């Protein structure tokens, strides 16, 4: 590894301090200390004095794009992003939730981020498998090259090969375990709806207690709401306290969208989200 996590942390601090001191931004979204080294937390530096609280290590999985929509429109912000996280920023710009000119994107090319629960290096099996940001203003480290690149959709083959009944049984078993804590939507940079459809009473789309029908309604509809928007950072699944592999479903929908509409989420700020767009040459084949 060309650049150490320590070097990234130092560079992040330097840039954060410079941006805050110059008044270019009023806050910097980064990672900070958690209760132990394995559990860093999202961290907001609002002044130069906060900068020392910034950390970066191999367990900084959080997608900080999640927090961009928390601040009033027009707030000048810097945000530290890894590869997938940068796609979330791009997607939010597409959706006009943040303006490009209000952002300073601190891009972090990095390989070796680990899932704190399993200790495994995060790659294309559970995320989009990119290691370099797709959009940034300041690059915090040299781009990563030569690391194993796995197709983000290879992991799906096993599930696509199942027959309908087996796949239903699989998902029923998984989604039955959902305790409806909504950590998935809290972690998701694209889940900015307030209120979420599932919290509503008129109409009541599904039961709020953790039972199969309501769980299905919540998750299936959420998969649809995120179709063509999910950037495959995998945070929903890492946030899930009962380890439901939500990323699998999101990957499947992302794959289908890419095949049907020829566009992956969060790759270019010029794109329009695929489900609020159409092309005359769309084919009826997609309905088969």
């Amino acid at each position, binding site marked *: 590894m060309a650049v150490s996590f320590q070097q990234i942390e130092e560079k992040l601090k330097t840039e954060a301090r410079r941006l805050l001191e110059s008044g270019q931004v009023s806050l910097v979204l980064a990672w900070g200390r958690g209760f132990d080294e394995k559990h860093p937390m999202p961290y907001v530096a609002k002044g130069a004095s906060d900068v020392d609280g910034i950390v970066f290590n191999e367990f900084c999985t959080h997608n900080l794009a999640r927090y961009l929509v928390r601040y009033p429109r027009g707030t000048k912000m810097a945000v530290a992003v890894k590869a997938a996280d940068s796609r979330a920023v791009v997607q939010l710009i597409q959706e006009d939730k943040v303006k490009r000119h209000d952002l300073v994107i601190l891009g972090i090319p990095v390989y070796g981020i680990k899932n704190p629960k399993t200790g495994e290096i995060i790659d294309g099996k559970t995320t989009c498998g990119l290691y370099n940001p797709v959009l940034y203003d300041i690059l915090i480290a040299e781009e990563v090259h030569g690391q194993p690149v796995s197709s983000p959709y290879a992991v799906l083959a096993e*599930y696509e090969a199942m027959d*309908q*009944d*087996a*796949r*239903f*049984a*699989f*998902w*029923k078993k998984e989604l039955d375990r959902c305790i409806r804590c909504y950590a998935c939507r809290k972690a998701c940079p694209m889940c900015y709806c307030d209120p979420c*459809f599932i919290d509503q009473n008129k109409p009541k*789309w599904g039961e709020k207690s953790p039972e199969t*029908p309501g769980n*299905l*309604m919540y998750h*299936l*509809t959420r*998969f*649809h709401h995120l*179709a*063509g928007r999910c950037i495959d950072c995998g945070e929903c699944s890492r946030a899930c306290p009962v380890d439901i592999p939500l990323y699998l*479903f999101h990957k*499947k*929908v992302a794959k*289908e*969208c890419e095949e*049907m*509409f020829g566009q992956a989420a969060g790759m270019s700020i010029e794109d329009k989200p*695929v*489900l*609020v*767009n*159409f092309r*005359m040459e*769309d084919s*009826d084949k*997609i*309905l088969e």
Partner: protein
Amino acid sequence: MSFEPKILGIACNWCTYTGADLAGTTRLQYPQNLRVVRVMCSSRINPSFIFRAFQLGADGVLVGGCHPGDCHYNTGNLYARRRLAVTKKILEFAGLEPGRFRVEWISASEGNKFAEVVTEFTGQIKALGPQTKFKIS
């Protein structure tokens, strides 16, 4: 007694619903398992309507809209096509049999096509048997 499926239809006012009326006016016969909800445009169909229909016990869901390019609202069905395609992929990956959800473009002049599609789809759902996966018991 043989299995008589419940099929939910959602039809746009301008094309498919009018086409269904035409099937009636011309006295075409088709199975009575379909119950149609009228909406103004196929683009009105919220994906959750489809999920909900299967939870309510629909054995099949048939969506009907204007042919692409002929939408009364110009482009509504072009959005609907994409959104319903994704709905279908989601249902299938969750384990629904692919044959249970279908989208058809049926114009106001295609009473024949309406009757044919309903007949054919009803037969297909009968062959698939009751939908139990998503139905809330």
